[in-house]
Structure formats: structure tokens, C-alpha cells
């Protein structure tokens, strides 16, 4: 009679998606932030399109990291505030499964949405269409890694008052390899040379984080829940 792990995983992901789409404006906010930040740079630098293209990978990736951070503290905070996180932790399912399901659902809603929106931003920054594929793949890997680093940070800062400032302070230093390899891959794609090297490094950081972060995020949750 007890519910299997896969069944519980699907149920929690569905729960998160239903909850997210009940408040669509909260989904759009990080994306709009992503668009705004990327339009600030050209305004601030007032460069011609060709020069803009040189800095576009850095701008795109920095904006992507910052807007992903925005949506991260909603990962556990709303459930912790209304007590449902306790109910989830007592549901008989392992806490790791709950964390994995919630983080994957969060990535689908924030990271994947960001990747879908990124071509608009890319054209605004003068990135050629040929580079879109590599850029979007690298962004997908990058936002997934950041969702996992963010899950650890969010788990640690649940009950704190100004939690999301601290969340950024904790997560961003750990996300520097992401930014380096991601921006390098996009830059290589733009200049036409092969981005394979950077993509492999980015993928390895992503795999490394996705395997260890669930343990750390579960431990983080256990610390703040206890």
C-alpha cells in the first residue's frame, strides 16, 4: 500500500508545478528581471553592436545567474512558513527525494523558462543565431547547477529574516566556475570556434554538483527543520 519513490517524486513535482502556475506572475518576475538587467548593460555602455557582442556572453550569464537567484528563496520558504514542509518531512518519503523533486520542479519553472527566453536577450545583445544552440545548452546546464547550489543555500537560510541576501552571499562564490565555463562556451560559440572544451568542463561541474548537492541540501534542511 505504501507509495513508491517514483510515484512520490511525480506527485511532488506535480504539486510544485500546480502551485507555481497558481501564481503565474511569480514565474514571470525573474524572467522580466533577466530582460531588464540585460538591457541595462547596453544603456550603460552605449556600445555599437559589434563591441556589444564581445561582452554579451558575460552580460547574459551574469544576468541569468542573478535572476535564477531571485526565484531560489521561494524553493522552501513558502512551505516552511505555512508548516507544510514539516508535513512533507513526516510523509514517510525520504527527505532527499523531496528535495530532489522540489529542486527539479523549481528548475523546470525557472531555469528552463530562462533558457526559452534567452534567444530574445541574445538577439538584443547581438549574438548571432548560429551560437544560439550552444548558448541555450550551456544556459540549461548552468541554471540546473545553480538550482542545486541554490537548494543548499535555500535550505540553510529558511528561517532567517533577510534570508535571500545571505543566500546570494553563500551561492554566488560557489557559482564562479559556472560563470567562467558558461560564458567561455558562449563566447567560443559566438566567435565560431568550437566550444566543446568549455562545454565539457561546464557539464562536469553540473554533474558533480547534481550528484553531491542533494545530500548537502537534505542535510541543510535537516539542520533548519530540527
Amino acid at each position, binding site marked *: 500500500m505504501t*507509495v513508491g519513490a517514483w510515484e512520490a517524486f511525480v506527485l511532488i513535482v506535480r504539486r510544485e508545478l500546480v502551485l507555481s502556475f497558481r501564481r503565474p506572475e511569480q514565474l514571470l518576475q525573474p524572467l522580466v528581471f533577466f530582460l531588464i538587467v540585460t538591457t541595462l548593460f547596453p544603456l550603460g555602455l552605449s556600445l555599437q553592436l559589434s563591441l556589444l557582442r564581445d561582452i554579451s556572453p558575460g552580460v547574459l550569464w551574469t544576468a541569468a545567474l542573478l535572476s535564477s537567484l531571485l526565484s531560489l528563496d521561494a524553493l522552501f520558504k513558502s512551505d516552511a512558513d505555512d508548516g507544510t514542509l514539516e*508535513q512533507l518531512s513526516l510523509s514517510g518519503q525520504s527527505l532527499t527525494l523531496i528535495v530532489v523533486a522540489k529542486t527539479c520542479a523549481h528548475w523546470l519553472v525557472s531555469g528552463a523558462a530562462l533558457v526559452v527566453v534567452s534567444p530574445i536577450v541574445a538577439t538584443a545583445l547581438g549574438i548571432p543565431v548560429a551560437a544560439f544552440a550552444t548558448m541555450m545548452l550551456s544556459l540549461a546546464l548552468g541554471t540546473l547547477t545553480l538550482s542545486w547550489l541554490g537548494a543548499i543555500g535555500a535550505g540553510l537560510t529558511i528561517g532567517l529574516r533577510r534570508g535571500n541576501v545571505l543566500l546570494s552571499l553563500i551561492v554566488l562564490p560557489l557559482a564562479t566556475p559556472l560563470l567562467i565555463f558558461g560564458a567561455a562556451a558562449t563566447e567560443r560559440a559566438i566567435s565560431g570556434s568550437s566550444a566543446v572544451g568549455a562545454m565539457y568542463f561546464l557539464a562536469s561541474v553540473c554533474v558533480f554538483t547534481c550528484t553531491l548537492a542533494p545530500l548537502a541540501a537534505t542535510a541543510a534542511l535537516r539542520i533548519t527543520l530540527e
Partner: protein
Amino acid sequence: MNSAADGLCVEKVHVWRGERHVLKGLSLKVGPRELLHISGPNGTGKTTLLRVASGLLRPEQGTVTWMGRPISSSSSQYQAAMAYSSHEPALKSDLTALENLRFAVGLKRRVTLQELRTVLDCTGVGPIADLPTRVLSAGQRRRVALARVLAMRATLWLLDEPYSNLDASGTELMSGLLQAHVEGGGMALVVAHHALALDCNVHRLELNS
């Protein structure tokens, strides 16, 4: 008296809240067909004790065992057999009552929507099962939380102030369900201020500061 092996047993737990020594070596035991009513003035650690019993809070010293085995090592069996309802009704305000139950109970056992509707009917919130819980009154939310505990079909109930916000019929419903649960072989640990009008096997644990 039945032995400690077939119920919940809490032995000499100590808990500090920062500087305050909230629980000083407290012990309790609940067996089948028993209800333990924990009462006492505010701030004497009633909720802390319930959270320790549920496994949410790990005590600095002392042990909590279920069916003779410590709950820290057998948490999945323990969680499958118990239902915890905190002081807050713990419902997602954006989800409807039915969805709340579906996602909460669905993690513990396969349950059909029809079965959930009947449970919600039986606790008097059937007609509003499809409204988001934010529009419900506190009493109605308490009834939805009660329906969740019922739908879990757990042998052990851990209820924190289950009577709060309930009107006269709600209180009567609550007492009836508790009575039926305990007489049907279940166990319950209930934190409540006022006396429980139950005539089943009720033990009382008075916490004083």
C-alpha cells in the same frame, strides 16, 4: 498495562531552547486503545514535547521509541504509522482543500479523490472542498487538517491543539472521531488546554513550569 513494546515510548528527554531548559527529563508512554492528554499553562513545552515525539525535533538527551525501536533509525516505519497535526493547520492557501489532501495523503498511501471527498464530507467541509483554502475560515481549515489526519488512517495520532477555532459542532465531531479512533485500537497524544469530554481510556499528563 501493555508493555512498552507495542506503542510510543518517550524516555527522559531533555531539550534546551537557547538558555531555557524546556524539557527536564520528561517521559511518557502511549499504548493501543489509549489517549494521553497533555495539558498545562503556556510555555511549559507541550508543543516541544509533541515535536520530539513526532521526530521533528531531536532531543539533546533521552530516546523516543516506536514498537520498541528508536524512531531515529526506523523513521519510515514510524512515519507510515503516525499522523501529526501541528498548531497551524499547515495547508497551502493557493491549493483547494481537496488538492491539499491529495498531495499530503498521496505521499503516504494510494488514495482516490472520491475517498478524499468522503473524508472531507465527514468532517463537514465537503461542499467547499474545491475552494482555495485561503478563503476558508480558521475553523474550516482546522476541519480540513482533521480530514487529512483521518485520511491517513494512521494508528498513532499526534494532535497539537486540535480543538482550536472549532465551533460547538466541530468540538463534538473532534471528540467523536477521537473516541472512535482510540476505541478502534488506535493511540493518540493530544495537546489541549481544556478537559476532553471523552469516556474512553484517557490518561492525563500535566506539565508545570
